[in-house]
């Protein structure tokens, strides 16, 4: 009975996966699809994998690690070094005599077996990229995993920075090309099926497969042990779960997939440079994990597309200094801004009303209790509206605040608001497929209550 149900679920999942791949493939090949959309989809798929790998560690095993960028860098460099075509190695490694490996995995396999060989080569290199990251995770895991929470975060963050410095070390130049770009290696654009482009399909395929493996892992007996460690370490150990072994396992697996996603990112960008893998990258991934919900795979995936969509596309305008064209445009802007503020205020007041909270609670005796947080929020909204009116009246056309870097400020504000008010994130620790279940059981309970 249970088995049949499982088979049905597996079929549904497979159908959805195929449907998504076909849809993405269609977007790849149809005319007039904005290239920005494809970029967002590709990068979103890759970031989804990193976020899931970070979630495996932070959300499912309860180890707060900030080393993700370091492991991505290891993966990206492993992949790039292995796949730079032989004839381009001279120009890529121009600062180093006899730089480069002298062979390229994807090139040799691709030449002998065509597209299939190329795919095989990429898969081999991706796995190697993951293994290198995993090996380093094992190495630093030996001392570092003995640390608890914040100390672990600091140690892993430090490790990521060290890796970044080591890769740029001059003496390693013949392999890593020092602090210079690595480019020219096999990327997503090299994949096609006949005349069909597969540029966006490939990251979806790779990332989807990896995430699928993580989901399988999390629902296996080992995944359950990870969750037990997260919930209560003492109880987990008392029930015979070897803490050191399982923490190391989770750390290595998480890093393995971070390495793969680093390699995918390299393929997406078509170039790698160590400078890009800063703590800011880990911060972005952390943002995705928090927004998606710590302990939710689907949450991480959704949030990753949302985040990449916003940062690459939707909120780009925040980084550009903008001057409005004329008075009409200004009025339009002011109206939209005012409506937005009003909507936020209305939403806040409504949710307060639903919870039965009041701005000022009159006590029978003594001073009335005031909700200063809500009052402050109202005050800020009032000031924003006043500024809106003033902006319309004033002769200025240039929008304030908008300049390079403001986007990150907005993101930081978003994460602060999330952490303060919506700690659960989009999904909490639920998965998409749990949502139906929850409602059903709630309904069942209500039904029992009515009887």
């Amino acid at each position, binding site marked *: 009975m249970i088995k049949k149900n499982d088979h049905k679920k597996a079929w549904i999942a497979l159908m959805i996966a195929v449907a998504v791949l076909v849809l993405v493939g269609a977007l790849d090949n149809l005319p007039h699809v904005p290239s920005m959309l494809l970029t967002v989809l590709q990068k979103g798929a890759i970031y989804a994998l990193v976020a899931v790998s970070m979630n495996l560690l932070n959300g499912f095993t309860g180890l707060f690690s900030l080393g993700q960028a370091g492991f991505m860098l290891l993966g990206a460099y492993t992949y790039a070094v292995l796949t730079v075509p032989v004839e381009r190695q001279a120009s890529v490694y121009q600062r180093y005599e006899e730089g480069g490996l002298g062979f390229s995995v994807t090139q040799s396999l691709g030449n002998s077996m065509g597209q299939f060989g190329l795919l095989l080569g990429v898969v081999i290199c991706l796995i190697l990229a993951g293994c290198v990251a995993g090996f380093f995770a094992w190495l630093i895991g030996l001392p570092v995993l003995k640390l608890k929470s914040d100390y672990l975060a600091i140690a892993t963050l430090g490790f990521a920075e060290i890796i970044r410095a080591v890769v740029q070390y001059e003496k390693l130049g013949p392999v890593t090309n020092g602090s210079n770009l690595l480019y020219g290696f096999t990327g997503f654009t090299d994949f096609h099926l006949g005349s069909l482009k597969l540029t966006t399909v490939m990251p979806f395929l790779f990332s989807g497969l990896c995430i699928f493996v993580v989901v399988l892992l999390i629902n296996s007996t080992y995944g359950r042990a990870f969750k037990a460690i997260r919930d209560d370490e003492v109880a987990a150990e*008392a029930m015979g779960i070897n803490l050191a072994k399982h923490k190391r396992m989770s750390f290595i697996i998480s890093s393995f997939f971070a390495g793969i996603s680093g390699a995918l990112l390299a393929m997406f960008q078509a170039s790698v440079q160590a400078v890009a893998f800063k703590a800011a990258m880990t911060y972005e991934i952390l943002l995705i994990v928090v927004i998606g919900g710590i302990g939710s795979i689907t949450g991480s995936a959704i949030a990753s597309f949302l985040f990449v969509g916003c940062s690459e596309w939707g909120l780009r305008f925040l980084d550009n200094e903008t001057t409005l064209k004329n008075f009409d445009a200004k009025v339009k802007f002011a109206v939209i801004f005012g409506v937005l503020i009003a909507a936020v205020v209305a939403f806040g007041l409504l949710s307060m009303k639903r919870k039965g909270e009041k701005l000022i609670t009159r006590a029978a005796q003594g001073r009335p209790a005031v909700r200063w947080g809500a009052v402050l929020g109202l005050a800020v909204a009032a000031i924003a509206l006043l500024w809106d009116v003033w902006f319309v009246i004033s002769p200025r056309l240039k929008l304030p605040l908008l300049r390079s870097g403001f986007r990150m400020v907005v993101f930081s504000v978003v994460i602060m608001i999330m952490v303060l008010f919506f700690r659960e994130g989009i999904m909490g620790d639920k998965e998409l497929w749990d949502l139906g279940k929850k409602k059903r059981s709630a309904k069942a309970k209500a039904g029992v209550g009515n009887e």
Partner: protein
Amino acid sequence: MSENVLRVENATMQFGGVVAVDNLNLEINKGEIVSLIGPNGAGKTTAFNVITGVYAPSNGRVEFCGETIVRNHPQGKMKKLYKGQNPEMYTAAFRVQAENAETKDALEETEKERDSAAFTDKVLAPTPDVITKLGMARTFQNIRLWKSQTVFDNILIAKHLRRTSGLFSATFRLNRREEAAQRADVERLLEIVGLSEAKDELATSLPYGKQRRLEIARALATEPKLLLLDEPAAGMNPQETNDLTEFIGRIRSDLGLTVFLIEHHMDLVMDISDRIYVLDFGGLIAKGTPAEIQNNQRVIDAYLGVAEDA
């Protein structure tokens, strides 16, 4: 003579300058229900933690099913601070001294002591999980269930340590048979503790008494030989306590378990215990059958206090 399951020898646990457990000696035989009682702060839970490997004792030895699982002697800082007894007994120096003893008297004396100390070079368990694997499972005084997991999963996770499948086969579902066997076993345990109906509920949404039962079921899932219960009846009403008494008796007879428990409910303790150990200020003040303990003056004094000038 029945088979010895647990033997604690000269166990002393000292935190800084505080001796929490002082030279504790106890043994438990197969199939017995043994209680450890004593006033608050007597060191009962610390004794449990020493036995299950949460703390390494400052001095002493713990033997489980005939094998030494923990042995320690005061070392490092503790060497100076140590206030307990027999600080030399478990050091290598003691053994050498015992072997070199020349006079007949000294030889006899040291041999006697050596036999009681029973040196073995193998110490099996550095961490609690290894001890659990050997067959000793426990519950906690303040319930420690995995909060975000369902009742079913709480028990299923405890079956993890008996797995034979590796990471790879578990991830890619090549262990279906084992998984199915585990799940069937969990169903059986749920049946035994009477929680089958609540199996899909969150562990924390259960009422208190049922959470305690779930914790026992979780401990049973590790397939123990010896079950340690830390105040299983804490916070239970008389009815629930009666049920629990019956339940503990049943798991002993049905599953052939040995049970060692800490408890404050004297009705329960006197009802089901074969033997009782009484701790006060870390030290053992009495041991014996329930009837003996009830009439022991030192125990009565420890619980009721002694008038200064009496």
